[in-house]
């Protein structure tokens, strides 16, 4: 068991692709870090460099007290779970798990004990004599995990280990991985493009974009206090609503104006220097769906937090309702947003482009199931303006982050 540290790690492939750019990470001993980002952002490359499967172009990687830059993968005492498992097809589950121990000349009895213990943890004792082709996807996944566990390595490296499973199995294996990781207390780097997985699995999550680390923090903090537009847009589902607005001072208040709407910025944000610097300029306003509620339920809300908007779609989710409504201002469609949606939902981009053309955006509100708003209604919605997010349109940098940290504490 050991901590892992990446210091200024970069990787440029021969074709010139800068897949990882000056990456700094620290994973404390026994913790699990989720490395998350849209596909192509360099997660796998970063993980492979930790594993030793890819040379570093520059930088240093430390596992425990050793700098491992020049060590072969086998000498780094790490175990890896591959996206498509990479089980040896000609070996049984037992042989797959035992191979690394045989190579290391672990005594037979000890080998036997460790394989069976791993099999027990993963509940695959029945499968030990089977070959990969005779197993289901979930079973192969377990064997791949088992192969990592028997090693009792310093660290687990997992590259989207659940992405080839169906949705239900994925949720189940997710909690299983978490359980095992906590039971063994092995330092783990967990790569995923799925922000939900990162939220639920990581002690910490690191968000990457185009090879560059955007932010590292606990998943809750990433969600609550994103450092920039990209992180804000990437974390959360449904994603943050965003629109370009003007930040104005009226009387004693700061307001954001977009289309025919205006919202009064909450006290804490208002006080932040970085926010005040933008008065009279345009900003990007972000509102999380759960911070919008139905005025018929939330009757006491002040005027500067209300939106009168037409409801386009009503999705019953049981414990909540998703209301889709339009706002008469163009949506944000910059490089960050394109990057977020590029791989998973190409039609989202198309929809955004359409909205850009018609200069209206579709927002989503996550409201109380009591809400009576129907499709076609002009609904009165209330925004929790203390939870507004503001971003610099030019750089995407979040404004007033210092204030939000304070809110977080006082809450």
């Amino acid at each position, binding site marked *: 068991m050991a901590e892992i540290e990446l210091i200024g790690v970069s990787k*440029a492939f021969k074709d010139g692709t800068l897949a990882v750019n000056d990456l700094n990470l620290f994973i404390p001993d026994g913790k699990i870090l989720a490395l998350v980002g849209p596909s192509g952002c360099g997660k796998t490359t970063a993980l492979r460099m930790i594993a030793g499967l890819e*040379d570093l*172009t520059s930088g240093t990687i430390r596992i425990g007290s050793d700098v491992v830059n*020049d060590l*072969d993968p086998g000498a780094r005492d790490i175990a890896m779970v591959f996206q498509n498992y990479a089980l040896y097809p000609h070996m049984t589950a037992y042989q797959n798990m035992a191979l690394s121990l045989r190579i290391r000349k672990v005594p037979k009895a000890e080998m036997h004990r460790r394989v069976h213990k791993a099999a027990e943890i993963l509940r695959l004792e029945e499968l030990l004599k089977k070959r990969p082709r005779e197993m289901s996807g979930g079973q192969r996944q377990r064997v791949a995990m088992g192969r990592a566990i028997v090693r009792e390595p310093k660290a687990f490296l997992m590259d989207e280990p659940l992405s080839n499973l169906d949705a239900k199995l994925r949720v189940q294996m997710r909690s299983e991985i978490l359980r095992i990781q906590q039971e063994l207390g092995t330092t783990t780097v967990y790569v995923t493009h799925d922000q939900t997985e990162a939220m639920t699995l990581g002690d910490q999550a690191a968000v990457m974009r185009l090879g560059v680390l955007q932010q590292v923090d606990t998943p809750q903090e990433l969600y609550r206090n994103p450092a920039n537009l990209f992180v804000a847009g990437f974390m959360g589902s449904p994603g943050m609503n965003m629109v370009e607005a003007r930040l104005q001072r009226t009387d004693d208040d700061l307001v954001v104006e977009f289309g025919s709407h205006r919202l009064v910025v909450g006290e804490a944000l208002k006080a932040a220097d970085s926010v005040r610097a933008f008065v009279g300029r345009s900003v990007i306003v972000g509102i999380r769906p759960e911070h919008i509620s139905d005025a018929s339920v939330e009757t006491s809300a002040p005027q500067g937090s209300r939106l009168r908007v037409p409801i386009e779609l009503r999705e019953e989710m049981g414990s909540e309702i998703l209301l889709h409504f339009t706002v008469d201002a163009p949506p944000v469609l910059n490089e960050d947003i394109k990057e977020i949606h590029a791989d998973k939902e190409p039609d989202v981009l198309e929809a955004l482009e359409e909205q850009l053309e018609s200069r209206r955006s579709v927002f989503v509100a996550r409201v109380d199931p009591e809400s009576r708003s129907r499709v076609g209604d002009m609904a009165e919605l209330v925004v929790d303006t203390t939870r507004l997010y503001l971003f610099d349109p030019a750089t995407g940098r979040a404004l007033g982050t210092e204030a939000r940290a304070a809110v977080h504490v006082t809450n």
Partner: protein
Amino acid sequence: MTKPRRRVLGRSRKREERSAYLFIAPWIAGFLLFWLAPMAISVVLSLMDWDLLSTPKWIGLQNYAELFFNDRTFWVSVGVTLKYIVLSVPLYLVTGLLLSLLLNLKIRGITVFRTILFIPSILSGVAVAVLWVAMLNPDTGAVNDVLRQIGISSPPRWLQDPSWAVPSIVLVGLWGIGGGAIIYLSGLQNIGAQLYEAARIDGAGAFQRFRFVTLPMLTPTLLFVLLTSLIDAFQVFDTAYVLGGSQGGVGDSLRFYLINLYNAGFVGGRFGYASAMAWILVLAAAAVILIIFRTSGRWVYYEYDPESER
């Protein structure tokens, strides 16, 4: 901050490289010993007069000069080989293709036919030749027996008739045409069904589908078969040796290039001379291959290959 772009190989890459050279070492050794060294020796040898026992004598280009201007049997062997190439290569190309079309039909029992027709191509040239030398015996052989029974009173005397000798070998080769057909067959089976469906929808009949889908898609296979059958045709030995003996058959009618070379070197002991002949063979073969490759761009259609080289 700015690091030099080109780094020397990392230590693990160096290890990888070292083990790579170990892995390919057998071939490197084999290449040096069994290809490069003989090639170098061969060049030098072709400029010498040497019978293995006496001391070798440097004679410059005399071997080549003798071959070109002073050796009737050399030109005979060239003629026999060319005659064989002209007769056999186009014939095998077309019949192999036709047979593969037949074997590609989706009818019951087709795999049995494929198996049967493939058998001759795995038999040795010697075994086949031994069989056919008996079959083609003009008096007692089965072939002429059949011919006489269907009313041909004086059938060809095959190997004993110089003008029939090379055609005889061509016909014997036809017996093994199933081998070539199998290669076409795999080419045919790699043509996507949806291409045919698209052609059908465009209203193409059976012949048009062959002309506009099958044939173009099969051109890489045709190129491959053309090249290999040409290279093989340059090197006929076993069959000719059995059917015509080491001296090249009746009236030199089966004095193929390699038979002649074998005679000059291993029977006549003129190793320098034989080396010169070998070089002429290599250069001729290389020229033909090169010409075919150069012109193949015009008629070979390659499908997009997603697997690109490193």
